[in-house]
């Protein structure tokens, strides 16, 4: 087991550094810099001094190595948009609304999806099944800003039940949470349905039925437990997905979270913030895939023995 984990860890580390290099190069090859005349009207001498102070006059490879050296020490630099704080301070401030709304969206959406998927699998080819697959197809295909727009139009504009935007008051959370919840609900409804149908068709279920076990016990004690593995492994990537979803949800609902910084850091050539956001997401995905690989290897010994697949 340990060699397998170490091999995966090495592979993930290499992936992470290659991605960081590609993003760094792409970011710096976007024409224009943070102190161009339009965004920040300063004299040439001041600009040169600023560039030198921030190390932007150095060759790219030096900048990259310096930056990554800082990253390894949890030093992500100072965002150019808001020089009074560090990138870490800015992120930990902006993270709160995104985490609350996205987290609640997943926490509410995932169980609903599991219930829907279970209902669909246990009532195959009935209206419940068709309803569940319609809901999951809609949730999986329609972009989150379209869902958000529809929610606002129905509940805020037409019915006038809920406020459309804003942040601190909890009643303003309801619509963005509903928008976030659509994706985990759809994902889980689909995965749960197919995993449960898969398990229900196995011979051991027939044996349990022959043994005279009640259908409830078969479902809750045996089938659900055996179907849980794929559900556990999709959880983390889906949770991270709410971070990219926040770009749209927070723009639609005017929430002062992380989302807006993804766009503004690119527009303003705010290299430290942009790099930090990209690396954060990449890092979380790397960890999520690593964890799910390890969980899989723990469950399935063929993977850690065979190695190649």
């Amino acid at each position: 087991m340990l060699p397998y984990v170490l091999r995966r860890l090495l592979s993930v580390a290499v992936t992470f550094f290659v991605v960081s290099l590609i993003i760094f190069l792409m970011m710096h090859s976007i024409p224009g810099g943070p102190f161009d005349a339009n965004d920040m009207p300063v004299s040439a001498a001041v600009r040169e001094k600023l560039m030198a102070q921030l190390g932007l006059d150095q060759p790219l490879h030096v900048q990259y190595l310096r930056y990554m050296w800082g990253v390894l020490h949890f030093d992500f630099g100072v965002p150019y948009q808001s020089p009074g704080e560090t990138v870490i301070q800015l992120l930990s401030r902006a993270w709160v609304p995104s985490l609350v709304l996205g987290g609640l969206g997943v926490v509410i959406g995932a169980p609903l999806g599991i219930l829907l998927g279970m209902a669909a699998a246990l009532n195959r080819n009935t209206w419940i099944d068709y309803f569940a697959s319609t809901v999951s197809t809609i949730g999986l295909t329609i972009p989150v800003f379209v869902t958000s727009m529809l929610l606002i139009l129905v509940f805020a504009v037409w019915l006038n039940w809920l406020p459309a935007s804003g942040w601190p008051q909890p009643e303003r959370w309801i619509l963005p949470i509903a928008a976030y919840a659509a994706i985990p609900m759809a994902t889980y409804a689909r995965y749960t349905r197919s995993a449960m149908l898969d398990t229900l068709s196995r011979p051991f279920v027939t044996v349990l039925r022959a043994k005279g076990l009640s259908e409830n016990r078969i479902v809750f004690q045996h089938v659900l437990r055996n179907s849980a593995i794929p559900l556990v492994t999709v959880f983390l990537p889906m949770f991270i997905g709410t971070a990219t979803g926040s770009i749209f949800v927070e723009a639609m609902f005017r929430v002062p979270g992380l989302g807006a910084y993804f766009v503004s850091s690119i527009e303003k050539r705010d290299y430290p913030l942009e790099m930090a956001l990209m690396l954060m997401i990449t890092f979380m995905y790397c960890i999520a895939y690593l964890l799910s690989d390890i969980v899989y290897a723990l469950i399935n010994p063929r993977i850690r023995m065979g190695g190649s697949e």
Partner: protein
Amino acid sequence: MTEVAVPIADLPQRSPIWFAWQRFLSNKAAVAGGLVLAVLILMALFAPLITPVPPEAQLFLTESLAFPSAQHWFGVDGLGRDFYTRIVYGARVSLSIGFIAAAFSVVIGIPVGALAGYFGGRLDWFVMRIIELFSVVPPLLAAMLLGALTRGGYFTIVLIAALFGWVQVCLQVRAQVKAFREREFVRAAQALGASPWYIIRRHLIPNSVSPIIVGFVLAIPLAMMLEASLSFLGIGVPPPTPTWGQMINEGIDYMFFYWHMAVFPTAALAITVLATSLFGDGLRDALDPTLKGR
């Protein structure tokens, strides 16, 4: 004698395509999705015949932001343009980007997947590492960077969508080729001295045709979503070209007073993406019934 013989002789001639077609027809959601998609494609192709005014002409400035009426089915937008016309022409942008990007994805995905699956070893390892890079970077974030790098534009969006669309096609083709590589007919071809290129082209790719078709169709909604998302953020296809993503973004500012500005582009995008996905899912279930419900 012959009257009896005819139907019996007919039976074995039913091809796998006939059975796939029957399976497809029995899936009502997929048929509905296909029909809606066909109507949308016709609408996009014959847009000038459906609405007489050009989408960028500000012909109705005096009626700016007018609500839907008999003359302007979807109303007029803030710059005096007929909104119905803009929605119809928006279908052109959305669908053409979807189809072209999906075609590029297939063109990249097939050879890479086939070579990796056939030769295995180092090449396969290398391809899989590249795919791993794509799996840890969310397409949208990378597309935002690339969009800023290239200043958006129609063809750039197509390329960005293809850059992220080929991975799925490649994985499908690779899996299929790997499964067929050890079959007897491939071994026989190798023994007869056929070159790897000939075997891939003549035997392995034709055997992967159903995952390729499915991959193509399912890449379309993804590309359309990417285009709409980038246009929504203002780094997609630049105005005045009408795109639904852009219109939704403008619609946010108007939605409390001029609901038509928000409703129609949102509905158009939702219907198109949903119809294409339903059609693709149905096609997948019809072509490969073992995958049903996944």
